[in-house]
């Protein structure tokens, strides 16, 4: 059992994965927060990301769809922010990170996807004025997801 219990171990483990496995595990992180977004394109993107045999053409299309979803969901400068909708923006960013080609994102695509998923959870908690620390819970869930992935 790969006992990942902190971000240092988490990040090291992610960096040890090749590009395809990074994408697949990133899709698992996104799956965990997918209910925070209501853009149907993201489920399609994530199915592609989760497919370790996805052809390049599908990945390109998925990235395009994820980016479009990201632009459509961001809060425009000066408009009133809705933190529930902002959670959807970060899910879209996580999905986009998952299908971004290797070498384009600092820390790797899986790390960026994980961070955006945590942000999505944080945004939802802001919307609900929750006093707990949902990002920490999301981190723990991601440690578990990665551990299981490495052991599978």
């Amino acid at each position: 059992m790969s006992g990942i219990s902190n971000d240092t171990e988490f990040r090291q483990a992610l960096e040890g994965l090749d590009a395809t496995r990074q994408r697949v595990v990133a899709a698992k992180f996104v799956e965990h927060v997918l209910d925070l977004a209501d853009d149907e394109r993201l489920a399609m993107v994530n199915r592609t990301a989760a497919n370790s045999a996805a052809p390049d053409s599908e990945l390109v299309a998925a990235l395009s769809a994820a980016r479009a979803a990201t632009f459509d969901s961001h809060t425009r400068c000066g408009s009133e922010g809705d933190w529930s909708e902002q959670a959807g923006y970060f899910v879209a960013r996580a999905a986009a990170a998952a299908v971004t080609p290797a070498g384009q994102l600092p820390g790797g695509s899986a790390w960026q996807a994980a961070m955006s998923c945590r942000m999505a959870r944080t945004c939802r908690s802001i919307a609900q004025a929750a006093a707990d620390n949902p990002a920490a819970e999301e981190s723990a869930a991601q440690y578990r997801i990665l551990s299981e992935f490495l052991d599978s």
Partner: protein
Amino acid sequence: MNGPSLERGINALREQVDAPVAAFFNSCVHCGMCAEACLFFTETRNPAFTPIHKLEPLRRIWKSEYTFMGKLASALGLGKKVDDELLAQWEPLVYDSCTMCGRCSMVCPVGNDITYMIRKVREGMAASGHAPSGLVSATKRAVTIGSPMGVKLPALQAQIRHAEEESGLKIPVDVEGADYLCTLSSMEIMNFPEYISAIARIFDHAGVSWTLASDGFEATNSGIQIGVSEIAAELVGRVVKAAEKLKVKAVISPECGHAYMAIRWEGPNLIGRPYGFKVLHILELLDELRKEGRLHLSGKEALRLTYHDPCQISRRGGVVEQPRRLINMVAEDFVEMPEAGTMNWCCGAGGGVSTNERADDLRLKVFNRKKIQLDAIQAEGMISACSNCRIHLEDGLEKYHMDIPVLSLTETIAAHLAEKAPAGVGAS
């Protein structure tokens, strides 16, 4: 504040006529060079978008009340009036098709600062009730909530908790005696919160003493954009009050163009006194750290990168060389866009244009100018230092089907910090 009215608008315009304005109108030779400097004109060829033409309401007030011939014409009933119809007609010209980027002022052969006058025209437009609804709402939220996007302190605190978890560092808040007070834009708090962990990591690495302020974290200034100096002064005053309370040596403006313009260049005039502290853009501070040998970076970006100069930071703010020196630390293959630096073309979304939904089609149309610049150099990635530019650049690139990632310079620096930090930790 009283409600807007035509009378208030005309009075506001009248108050804006000072010696520079009179000299500028007097010296305009109608050459049209400002038109070719404005991307709203070059990308549409609409003569109404000629910058000097956008000043017509102010010009009419100046002519009718401050020139002999104008006074005579008015006395004979021949003068051109400023009324609600005119102001309604000019509202899209003043707000939708001008980002106050300052490029027109750079090319005027007689030295007219047209941008300075656009800023003044907006005072009259806002006072008369002819300002875009999006900007009006943003300004109300900025005054009542403290953020044009409605970001409240608990939301910032949640983002801080996230940044602390991501960076493994304590984010200092309300630390009296810290050297630097960092301000943030609501865009960063909502759309790009990784900026917070980026500055935390850089400052920890470089041993910088810094803090955020719970009652003065918002850097943006809707008062500047809409054109209400009274509100602009109130918003600047909040940051000044926080800086003085915490006794910091300097206030750091974030990756936001107009925020820098507001606090650095307009601020002291707005509040009517000099600051007791310095104001720096985050890139100025990072460049100082570089110069002092306190930034130790490793690795470089392999992409062919270029830099988009945010107008208020480069052209109007003077921060031109600092970003380039910093980019050289992280870019293997850096290429300048044509007309980079002080003559760079605006992204098309500054000066409140991005807040104004009515202008969406126009701002994306004029993005064609940026596309031309990027096509000329075959850039594979673009760095910038303004959250508003960044989101609009992404939007424009998407619309024009250009696969070019847009990066924050501060975040890119943070991503390349060498593992081992020198001794010394922040104020926390």
